[in-house]
C-alpha cells in the first residue's frame, strides 16, 4: 500500500519505529501535491518551512520527545491564520494578506508537532457548497474531476481524498466540513459550538462557525479533536468544559445505544441511493445491538431560511472590515472615500459573497429587523428545542449528510436556491450548536462516495465518534 494512502493513526507507528521518517513522508506529499495540481486544492504550499519542521521533528522522534501528532502532514483551510503566511479566505480582497499571528488551533497543533504543508482552497469566505466560488478557481473532486468536491472546505476534502496531505482543517458554518467530506469520501467533523477556539478563524457567521478536522479515518479525527479542544482565554464563546479522551471511543461496539432517525430528513429531494445507504447503516447498527428509533424534528423545514437570515446578517457585519482602508485589496486611482469603499468591495468580493452581504444588510435594516432577524432567532430557539426533545429519548441521530452525491461542476452555480439545499441536512446542527460527523459509508452507482451523518448532544462528540468508527469498520463490505 502506498504510504500516502495511510491515515496518521497508522503512520505514526511507522514513524515511532523509525521505519520511515518525517522528511521522506513530507517529500512524498510534496510530490503528490505537484501531481495533483489539477485539483487546485491548495492556495499556498510551504516546502521550505515544512522541510525544516520535518527535520526538527525527526530529531525529536529520535530523542523520544516528540508530540502527540509528530509527523502529521496537515493542510489548513485558508481562513485559519498561520503566522507570516497568506490568509486569503479564497478572496481577491485578501489575496495579499499575510497574517501576523497564529490561530489558537495552530498554536496547539504546532505544540504537538504537526507539519503544516500548506493552505487549502475554499469557497470565498466559506460561502458556498461546491468550491466554485473561489477567487483562485474551482477545486475538483479527485474521484471524478468533472465533479465538485463540495464546499466550502472543498480544498481540504479534495486534498485528503486525493492524498495531497494526510489530514486537514476545515471550518463548518452550515455544513462546510461535512458535505465536502461526504462528496469526497473522507471523514469530517463539526464539533460542538465552543468546543474549539475560534481565535484566528476568519469569521463568516460568528455564532455558527466552528473549526473541525477532515481526515482519512475516524481515528485521526478523534486524535485531532483531542488536541484542538478546550476553552481559550482569547475566545469568550469557547467552552471551558472537560475534554474527553476521544480516542477511547474507538473500537467500541454500539450495543444498547439508542439511535434516532429524524423522519423529516427522509423527504422529497433526497436521492434514492443516499436514502438506501442511510437505511443500510441503520440496519447494520441495529443488527449490532443498537436500538433504532424514529424521532421528529418538526421545525426542520425552516432551517435553511433561518440559516440564510442569521448567517448573512452576521456576515454582512463580519465582512465590513474589508474596505480597502488598512489592508487587503484597494482599487487604484481612488477619487474619494465612498469611491474607495464601493469599488474596492465590488471588485474585491465575488458574486456569492456580495449576494450574502446584501441579504444580511437587508435583514438587519431598520423596519426589517423584527420580521427577519428577530423572527429567525426565535426559530433558531425552536430548532434547538427540537433536538433537545429528541435527545431525551435517543443518544444520537443518524441522517444523510447531503441529499445527493457530488454534482457536476457548473451544474448548480447559476441557481443559488438549489445550491443552498445542499446544506438541508447539515445547517440545523450549526443552528443548534451541536456536534455532527460525516463518515463515508457507501457508494452510488457511479462509484461516488455517500457519507452518513451522526449528530450528537452538545459536548458529546464521544458518542458520535464511537458510532462513526463502528460504521467505518463495517462500511467496506456493504458498498
Amino acid at each position, binding site marked *: 500500500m502506498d504510504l500516502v494512502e495511510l491515515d496518521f493513526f497508522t503512520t505514526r507507528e511507522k514513524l515511532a519505529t523509525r521505519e520511515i521518517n518525517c522528511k521522506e513522508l513530507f517529500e512524498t506529499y510534496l510530490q503528490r501535491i505537484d501531481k495533483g495540481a489539477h485539483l487546485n486544492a491548495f492556495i499556498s504550499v510551504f516546502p521550505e518551512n515544512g522541510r525544516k519542521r520535518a527535520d526538527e521533528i525527526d530529531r525529536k522522534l529520535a530523542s523520544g520527545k516528540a508530540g502527540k501528532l509528530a509527523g502529521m502532514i496537515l493542510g489548513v483551510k485558508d481562513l485559519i491564520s498561520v503566522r507570516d503566511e497568506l490568509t486569503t479566505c479564497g478572496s481577491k480582497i485578501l489575496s495579499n494578506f499575510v497574517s501576523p499571528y497564529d490561530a489558537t488551533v495552530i498554536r496547539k497543533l504546532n505544540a504537538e508537532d504537526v507539519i503544516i504543508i500548506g493552505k487549502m482552497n475554499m469557497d470565498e469566505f466559506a460561502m458556498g457548497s461546491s468550491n466554485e466560488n473561489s477567487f483562485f478557481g474551482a477545486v475538483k473532486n479527485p474521484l471524478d474531476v468533472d465533479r465538485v468536491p463540495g464546499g466550502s472546505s472543498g480544498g481540504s476534502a479534495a486534498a485528503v481524498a486525493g492524498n495531497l496531505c494526510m489530514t486537514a482543517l476545515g471550518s463548518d458554518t452550515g455544513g462546510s466540513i461535512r458535505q465536502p467530506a461526504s462528496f469526497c469520501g473522507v471523514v469530517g467533523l463539526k464539533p460542538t459550538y465552543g468546543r474549539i477556539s475560534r481565535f484566528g478563524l476568519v469569521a463568516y457567521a460568528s455564532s455558527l462557525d466552528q473549526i473541525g478536522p477532515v481526515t482519512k479515518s475516524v481515528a485521526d479525527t478523534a486524535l485531532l479533536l483531542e488536541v484542538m479542544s478546550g476553552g481559550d482565554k482569547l475566545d469568550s464563546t469557547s467552552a471551558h468544559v472537560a475534554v474527553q479522551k476521544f480516542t477511547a471511543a474507538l473500537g467500541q461496539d454500539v450495543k444498547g445505544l439508542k439511535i434516532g432517525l429524524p423522519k423529516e430528513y427522509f423527504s422529497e429531494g433526497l436521492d434514492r441511493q443516499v436514502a438506501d445507504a442511510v437505511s443500510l447503516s441503520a440496519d447494520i447498527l441495529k443488527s449490532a445491538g443498537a436500538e433504532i428509533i424514529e424521532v421528529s424534528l418538526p421545525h426542520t423545514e425552516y432551517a435553511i431560511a433561518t440559516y440564510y437570515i442569521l448567517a448573512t446578517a452576521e456576515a454582512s*457585519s463580519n465582512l465590513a472590515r474589508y474596505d480597502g482602508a488598512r*489592508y487587503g485589496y484597494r482599487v487604484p486611482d481612488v477619487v474619494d472615500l465612498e469611491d474607495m469603499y464601493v469599488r474596492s468591495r465590488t471588485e474585491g468580493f465575488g458574486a456569492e459573497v456580495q449576494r450574502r452581504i446584501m441579504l444580511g444588510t437587508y435583514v438587519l435594516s431598520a423596519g426589517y429587523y423584527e420580521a427577519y432577524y428577530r423572527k429567525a432567532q426565535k426559530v433558531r430557539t425552536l430548532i434547538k428545542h427540537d433536538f433537545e426533545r429528541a435527545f431525551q429519548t435517543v443518544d444520537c441521530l443518524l441522517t444523510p449528510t447531503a441529499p445527493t452525491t457530488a454534482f457536476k461542476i457548473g451544474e448548480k452555480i447559476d441557481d443559488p436556491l438549489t445550491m443552498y439545499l445542499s446544506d438541508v441536512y447539515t445547517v440545523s446542527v450549526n443552528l443548534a450548536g451541536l456536534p455532527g460527523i460525516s463518515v463515508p459509508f457507501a457508494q452510488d452507482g457511479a462509484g461516488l462516495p455517500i457519507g452518513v451523518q451522526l449528530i450528537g448532544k452538545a459536548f458529546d462528540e464521544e458518542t458520535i465518534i464511537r458510532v462513526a468508527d463502528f460504521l467505518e469498520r463495517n462500511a467496506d463490505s456493504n458498498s
Partner: protein
Amino acid sequence: MKYEPVIGLEVHIQLLTESKIFCSCSTKFGAEQNTHVCPICLGLPGVLPVLNEKVVEYAIKLALATNSRINKRSIFARKNYFYPDLPKGYQISQFEEPFCEFGRISIKVDGEKSREISLTRIHLEEDAGKSVHAESFVSKDETLVDVNRCGTPLLEIVSEPDFRTPKEAAAYLTRLRQIVRYLGVCDGNMEEGSMRCDANISVRPQGQEKLGVKTELKNMNSISSVEKALDFEIERQISVLSEGGSISQETLLWDANRNVAEPMRSKEYSDDYRYFPEPDLVPVEVNEDWIDRVSQSMPELPLAKKQRFVQEFALPEYDAQVLSEDRAIADYFETAAQKVADKKAVSNMVMGEVLRVIKEQQLHVKDLKITPEYLSEIINMIDEGAISRNIAKKVFNRVAETGTAPRVIVQQEGLLQISDTSALEATLDQVLQENPNEVQAFLNGKEKVIGFLMGQVMRATSGKANPRSVNALLRKKLADLKS
C-alpha cells in the same frame, strides 16, 4: 410667544483603565501614532474581542454613584458603519439591554433649588481611532488614521431630556465631571476629549406638551462651550419658529472660534446602524457579590463629603462646598486638619493660601511643595504663639517655594515671635519715649492711638512681637502713666 427649551445630553467618558476594553494594549494618551495596537484592536481577520473586567468594575462604580439600576445581565451589540478609523466596520457598543438604567444626578444652579436629572442609561462601548487630515505631515488629498485610541473603553451616559436651560446642562456636566474624577474612572478633561458631550435640543411653546423637532449639537470642547452652543441654538430655533419657519432634524457642529453652530455636511439618507447582538461576546453578568465588592471600594462622594465636613469639623456650608469640590483638595484639607484643633483655621489657609498657590502656579495638589503636614505645623505654630498670623503667611510662602519644613524656616530666618514681656519692655519704653504726643492723646482719652503705638512696636521688632503680649504690656504701661 414664549418658548421653552428641552435639552438632553449624551456624555462619553474615556475610562482610566490601564488597558483597552477588548485587548491588552495600553490606553496611554499621547503615544506615537499606531504604536498601541495589536491584531485585535486593528480588527485583523480572525481576531476576537475579550472583555476587560476592569471596565465593568468602573461601570459599576459610576452606576452606584448615580443610583442607577444595574442590569444583572447586559449584552453587547454591533453598531455598523463604515469609516476608516473604525477598523472592524462596526463599533462594539450596547443597545438593547444596556449595563444600567434609571440613574439620577443632583444638580444646583446658583440661586435655585437643587433638582434631580434622570439618566436613561449608562452603557459600555469602545472608542474609535482618529482620522488625521489637517496636519503638517498630511498631504492635502490624504487622510491618515491613528488607531491608538481604538478600543479605549468608554461609558456613554445618556440623560433624559430634563434640562430647561443651558445653565442646568452646564451644572450637570460640572457635577458629572466631579463624580467621575472622584471615582477615579475618568480624568474628565473635555479639552483633550477624555470627556465628550453631545446635546439634543428642541424648543416648544411654553405650556405645550408635545416636543419640538430636535437638533443635535456636537464638537463642544468645554463646559462653557456647551452652554454657549445651547444658548446659540435656542436663539436660532426660536427665531426660525417665530418667523414661521420650521426646524429640520440635523446635526450641527459648534465652532468655538466663531461662536456659531453650523450644520454638518448633510447626508441625504439617515444613518441606519443595523444594531444586532454581538455574537463574539457573551453577556456581561454582574452579581450581588461583585457589586458589594466594588461598593466597599467606593470613595466618599462629593455631597456626602460636604455634609460630613459640616458635621464633623463644624465648617460653614460654604467652606465645606469649596473644599469638597475636588477630591485631592478635600484629602489635603483632611490630612492637614488631622493634627490641628482649629479646623476653621485649616479651612481658611486651604481656601485662601493653598488654592491661590495652585492657581498661580498651575499645580496639581500632589505637586505642592507645602505638604498638608507642613500646613498643620504652621497653623499649630500660630496656636502655640510661636509665630504671628502675619509671619505665618510669610512662612507659608517660603515653604511653598522651597519645600523646607516650616520650623526650619522660622529658625533660619529668625521669625520666632517675641512673647516674652521682658524682651519687649525695652522696645516699648523706647516707642513711648519717641512718641510723646500720641501718649498724651491716649491719656486724654483718645484710645485709638494705641493701634498706632502697637504698629510702631511691631515695626521695631520686624513683626516678630506677639501682638497680644504687646497690647497687654502697652495698656499696662499707659495705665501706669495715667495714675
